[in-house]
């Protein structure tokens, strides 16, 4: 078991370096003159060449990559093309905001989704259809549209929650939570329904399996079959889906942060895109990769613990 986990950890470290490498090279080899983009179409050739040189963009790609890599291992993620600030500084203060949002969403869609899924299992067929319809609606409603609607109803009409803005927890815990309610709902909504559906499907598969049949015939209680056996056997696939939905939520957070004007990585990403500020975008890629890799490792660990066959694989 330790050996399997050790290998996964190693693979994760490789990913941690490989992914930012890929993103770096993607942006390095894509055609398009960055300095030109920043200065605009009307800029003179000399101004463009000067900016290119200033930003170090006229050096060979390999050299730029190695420089970046070196900096990466020291925690130095380069400097913004626009402000000249260190990327790490620009982003450091924003990580907490994004994590609050994303982890908040993870907690909400995991718990609510799994609970709904289990509930619909022990019920009857009607519940099943309800979940099917709700989950289709849940995934179909775009998170940005939902976000705006939530603002319209809860902030503008009912004045219950703030429409935009973020309050750090150390400043005012209550306001912090209040500022996160609507964004988390907007982000988690689709996830809840996806998780509920997967939970229900996996549990039904479990409950129809030969071992469930044997246990039931030999006297095991229905409650035990659902909460002990089915849940345990379904947990592997459920957790895997949680991971997938989480990665999707990462993408969704970029949009949600923009709607609710949360000063996180996502809103910075959009801003930097319009500004063609590539080092900042690359820095965000690194942070996101770290989050994804950490989550994948946690999922692997949990799966290995839950699935006895995987321990020796």
């Amino acid at each position, binding site marked *: 078991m330790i050996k399997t986990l050790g290998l996964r950890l190693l693979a994760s470290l490789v*990913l941690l370096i490989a*992914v930012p490498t*890929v*993103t770096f090279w*993607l*942006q390095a080899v*894509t*055609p*398009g003159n*960055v300095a030109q983009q920043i200065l605009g179409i009307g800029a003179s050739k000399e101004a463009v060449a000067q900016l290119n040189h200033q930003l170090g963009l006229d050096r060979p790609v390999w050299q730029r990559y190695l420089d970046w890599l070196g900096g990466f291992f020291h925690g130095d993620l380069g400097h913004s093309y626009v402000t000249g600030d260190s990327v790490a500084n620009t982003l450091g203060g924003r990580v907490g905001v994004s994590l609050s949002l994303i982890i908040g969403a993870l907690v909400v869609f995991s718990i609510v989704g799994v609970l709904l899924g289990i509930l619909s*299992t*022990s019920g009857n067929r009607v519940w099943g259809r309800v979940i099917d319809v709700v989950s*289709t*609606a849940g*995934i*179909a*409603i*775009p*998170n*940005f*549209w939902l976000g*705006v*609607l939530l*603002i319209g109803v809860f902030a*503008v009409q009912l004045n219950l929650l703030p429409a935009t803005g973020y309050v750090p927890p150390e400043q005012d815990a209550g306001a912090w939570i209040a500022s996160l309610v609507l964004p988390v709902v907007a982000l988690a909504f689709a996830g809840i329904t996806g998780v509920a559906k997967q939970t229900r499907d996996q*549990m*039904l598969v479990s409950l*129809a399996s*030969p071992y*469930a049949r*044997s*246990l*039931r*015939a*030999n*006297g095991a209680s229905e409650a035990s079959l659902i909460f*002990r*056996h089915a849940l*345990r*056997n379904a947990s592997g696939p459920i957790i895997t889906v949680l991971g997938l939905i989480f*990665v999707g939520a*990462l*993408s*969704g957070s*970029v949009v949600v942060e923009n709607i609710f004007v949360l000063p996180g990585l996502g809103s910075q*990403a*959009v801003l*930097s*895109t319009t500004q*063609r*500020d590539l080092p900042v*975008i690359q820095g*965000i*890629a690194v942070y996101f*990769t770290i989050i*994804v890799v950490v989550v*994948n490792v946690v999922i692997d660990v949990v799966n290995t613990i*839950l699935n*006895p*066959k995987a321990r020796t694989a």
Partner: protein
Amino acid sequence: MSSVSQRFRVLRQYLRRPLAVVAAAFLLVIIVAVALAKVIAPYSPLEQDYSAVLSGPTGAHPLGTDQLGRDVLSRLLVGGQVTLVGIAEAVVVAVVIGIVVGLVAGYLGGPLDTVLSRLTELVMAIPGIVVLLMTYALTANNPHAGMLVLGLLSVPTIFRVTRGAAAAVRGETFISASRVVGIGRIAIMARHVLPNVWGPIIVNTAVLAAVTLGIQGGLNYLALGVNPPAPSWGGMVAEAQTALQQQPWLMVPSGLVIALTIAAFLLIADGLRDATDTSSAQSAPVAAPRATNVVDEAVTTPPEGALLAASGLSVAFGGTTVVREVAFAVQPGETVGIVGESGSGKTVTASAILDSLDGSAAVTGSVWFEGVELLRAPKAVRRATRGSGIAYISQDPMVALDPSFTVQSQLGELVRRHHGLRGAAQRARVLRLLGQVGLPEPGAIARRHPHQLSGGMAQRVSIAMALAGDPKVLIADEPTTALDVTIQGEILDLLRRLRDETGMGIVIITHDLGVIADLADRVVVMYAGEVVEQGAVGTLFAEPGHPYTRALLAANPIASERGKPLVSIPGSVPRPGSWPTGCHFAARCPFATDACTRAPIPLAPVPDASGDHASRCIRIDAVLADSTDRRVA
């Protein structure tokens, strides 16, 4: 089923689901409307009418206008072009690359598969949104570049589905058959793998389209991948947001069209999933078995002293009877063997007794356990008999045990359930049960998980699970079929020993007449849903009273004459739904006469020495006479 109808079977299955049909129609309308946008749009999407700014739905503007007086309907139609073309670009890229790479990895396996799978993991770990943002940053918001990149980022989804399905098909026997004949790998992938995997692929393609639309909508909302003032669905949501207080209506058409189109893709995916589902279980898996729909009939009393008895037991699914009027009894310490081939209904009969049929089964007749009628009893009574009254072991021991729990845990749970034991007493009882079923090192076995046990050991553990409640009757469904023949004997000996030790009755269901001879006291022979003969085991083998029983014994290769053909039964078993009116076996029976086909044949006593021999045959005299003649000759 003719080949033509088979080709359209998928289409017909799909058309059976109303939601899926509606969704497909909706999508078709959207696509056509958008394609013809330039023709049917009432206004130009850029045309501004300052006299009708932010108006709600009116005659001139059915979906209203935005803050620059532009017609919403026209903008939606034209904006749809960018949207739908973009989705098509992304999906086509993902599907083409995903299928090719997935087929290769899934079918060829080996190091190529490993490399491709690792690459896929790498791509999945890339924060796609960031790459998309970079793309837009570098290409000055080029929508095609963005969608192309999104397509590449979506390859893993299609790859995984294709690879999984291809890997599953790779292990099928028909692939081996083609390899033996020398068909090349590429030809096999094209001719045999692809046609068998396209079901899950198109389902996932539909889902991918839904997801892509959502992502693209979000990007357009952020003004990425589209250059205003060109319209796009996502962009129109952003525009609606700026006028949220003055004209909230604007949120509706923009967001709704996205939501409905995504929903349409998802419903189409659901429809396709059901339509291409080739497994025998067409409906969704059922949770707990419901109270079977028992139709009330005159309840007659069970035979004296019988532990378990059935009378007039019939089971039907969706109007088709699969088991008809089964009756038998099990006395304490007695072993009753139910023997039949496929289509005989023996397994469904066992399920009816165990109350493990799913809700779609209609059951008539009666089942008594210790004098209590079970089929109409309240749930609590039925639950109480499970395990402590009637217990069950199944055919394949490797799947009959929960793979996630140790033997101690599963067995302990039943011990606690039936005897309320916990802690040390519970552990002791578990070990004792494991010893009772002949396992040499109970402590070591208790700590293991099912996948760490051999077939024989796992079956012994299954038997221990069945014994946990000290049952009076054990129903064993083909308990030795999945085991090696040398292990089979050990399990039969074990069952016999347990029966002698505890006095429990056993119902053993099997197709193997040798097993019957080894273990059973009485035999019930089933054919095409009916009991055709029953009696003491000795009588049945020495003087079979039904042509089918005779034919079954005769076809057994055990006492065949080498050099001569085996006695075979011409024809095949009639399937439920096509049972003939008269005797089900008549078409294949050497004794059949006209009278045999006219009316249902009753189960009648056979006039011989044993006294409890019954046969469903009106030609019984001829059958017995034939045997006697031969013996004398």
